């Protein structure tokens, strides 16, 4: 949303007749220019854009910075190709046009389309760049078309001389199936300096930018099919939310496992108390216990530990199971940890667990943490004598 006055320098030299960009270099350039004008004026209604041509008989200003999009698009018509691009003069005239802008509060920016070879020396370009920087003019360079050995190097030098705090950018567009405008949409040339871009390019730009400079998210080009890309993204987020909810519910399951006496402990059944007498979980016992125990190890100072032990104990001892069950039902759901208060009970339970050594330091730590819970003791559980 930065208030900006932009001058676009178009290359209308003979090199633009080439067809390696479809339909021709010049057409691709025109499309890109129209898109940029639209984006600039839409991002801030007070933005102004102007156009000048660099080749032909000489540098010619077609439109001084104006907010009128129609006038800009109109002057793009009937442009003739010919001559050689004069980049130095073009940039300097653009700077002059910006200096005489009506609204002095606008930031100054020049966008150069460099499609033909650059005949100027690096030194000259660096001098121009320095002058632009001194007058706080930002510069965007679109390097396309003719691939010359020295051209990228010269343009890089120019960019380095102008660049002040990353306000200036350069984009290389190699010839290929992608249209020039499509490639540009995802670049900072279009989106501005981190502002997010204009309204009509925002969705495409954001999707493309988030997917990376060259790739697209989900393998779908948002420019070609924005609805599909949006649908894919929405469904991905829904899936993620669902998985999170499922994971949360699984955690709650483990908490209520001993109450519920679930055989298939992974079931998403909220009414656990219905399955109180179902303790035939032999086949799942091992895995469930390990998982529950693992969870209990992770969850410090909670009532889940005893649940794991309970589950194991009940599988082995049916009467104990029933007794525990009754005691559980008496207490409120959140008071499951009351059972933990009975230290002897806990240690005896632990001893019966296969693979759990009461002398194991981890287990001891767990016991210590359980002891610290300040819940009223409930001594109605029969101690487990089957040591």
């Amino acid at each position: 949303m930065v208030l900006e006055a932009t001058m676009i320098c178009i290359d209308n030299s003979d090199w633009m007749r080439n067809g390696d960009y479809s339909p021709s270099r010049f057409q691709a350039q025109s499309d890109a220019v129209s898109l940029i004008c639209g984006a600039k004026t839409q991002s801030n209604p007070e933005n102004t854009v102007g156009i000048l041509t660099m080749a032909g008989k000489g540098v010619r200003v077609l439109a001084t910075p104006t907010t009128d999009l129609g006038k800009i698009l109109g002057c793009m018509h009937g442009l003739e190709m010919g001559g050689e691009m004069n980049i130095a003069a073009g940039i300097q005239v653009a700077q002059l046009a910006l200096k005489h802008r009506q609204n002095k509060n606008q930031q100054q920016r020049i966008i150069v389309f460099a499609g033909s070879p650059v005949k100027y020396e690096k030194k000259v370009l660096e001098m121009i760049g320095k002058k632009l920087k001194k007058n706080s003019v930002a510069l965007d360079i679109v390097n396309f078309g003719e691939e010359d050995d020295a051209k990228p190097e010269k343009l890089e030098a120019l960019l380095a001389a102008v660049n002040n705090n990353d306000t200036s950018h350069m984009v290389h567009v190699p010839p290929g199936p992608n249209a020039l405008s499509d490639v540009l949409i995802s670049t900072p040339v279009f989106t501005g300096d981190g502002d997010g871009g204009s309204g009509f390019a925002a969705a495409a730009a954001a999707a493309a930018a988030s997917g990376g400079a060259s790739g697209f998210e989900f393998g779908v080009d948002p420019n070609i099919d924005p609805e599909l890309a949006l649908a894919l993204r929405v469904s991905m987020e829904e899936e993620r939310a669902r998985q999170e909810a499922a994971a949360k519910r699984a955690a709650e399951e483990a908490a209520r496992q001993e109450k519920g006496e679930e055989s298939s402990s992974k079931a998403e059944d909220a009414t656990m108390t219905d399955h109180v007498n179902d303790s035939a979980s032999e086949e799942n016992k091992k895995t469930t216990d390990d998982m529950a125990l693992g969870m209990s190890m992770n969850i410090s100072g909670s009532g889940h530990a005893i649940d794991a032990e309970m589950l194991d104990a009940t599988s082995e001892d049916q009467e104990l199971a029933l007794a525990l069950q009754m005691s559980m039902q008496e207490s409120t759901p959140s008071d499951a940890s009351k059972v933990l208060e009975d230290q002897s009970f806990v240690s005896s339970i632990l001893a019966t667990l296969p693979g759990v050594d009461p002398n194991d330091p981890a287990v001891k730590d767990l016991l210590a943490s359980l002891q610290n819970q300040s819940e009223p003791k409930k001594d109605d559980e029969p101690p487990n004598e089957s040591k």
Partner: protein
Amino acid sequence: MSAESASAIPRSQVDLLDFIDWSGVECLNQSTSHSLANALKQGYREDEGLNLESDADEQLLIYIPFNQVVKLHSIAIKGPEEEGPKTVKLFSNKEHMGFSNVNDFPPSDTIVLSPDNLTGKPVLLKYVKFQNVRSLTIFIEDNQSGSDVTKVQKICLYGTTVETTDMKGLKKIEDGH
């Protein structure tokens, strides 16, 4: 010829820091890490380590608008001996100047600073030229040693205000007051 220093600030003159309209302050060719605030703002300017530095070359163009009309009496510029400013041109009431048109108008005053002035002693200006100042443009043309970077540690403006209304200070009268 070096500019004459005042021995002390006359009692009537105040530091015009409070009258600067910060929203309109601009500086061309400053380096981003060493910006104008380091030289102008209270606290920053007293810090020896914080300077305003130039970027691409040694010239600096500073634009300071005021929120009321002031009379400018003197200016104190403090900077290092080597890279401190030498020739300083002041323009009053010229908006949005650029490096290309600084030489198009005659400046309201030109001061050439000596290393002695750079210790922070105020420099007297042509008071008659600065009776009605709404904005001040300071153009630092070169520095003492001719190096590529000009460093300024502190800029202090001294003067008085003319009795004008500060439009921002006007408040609506409540009904039934």
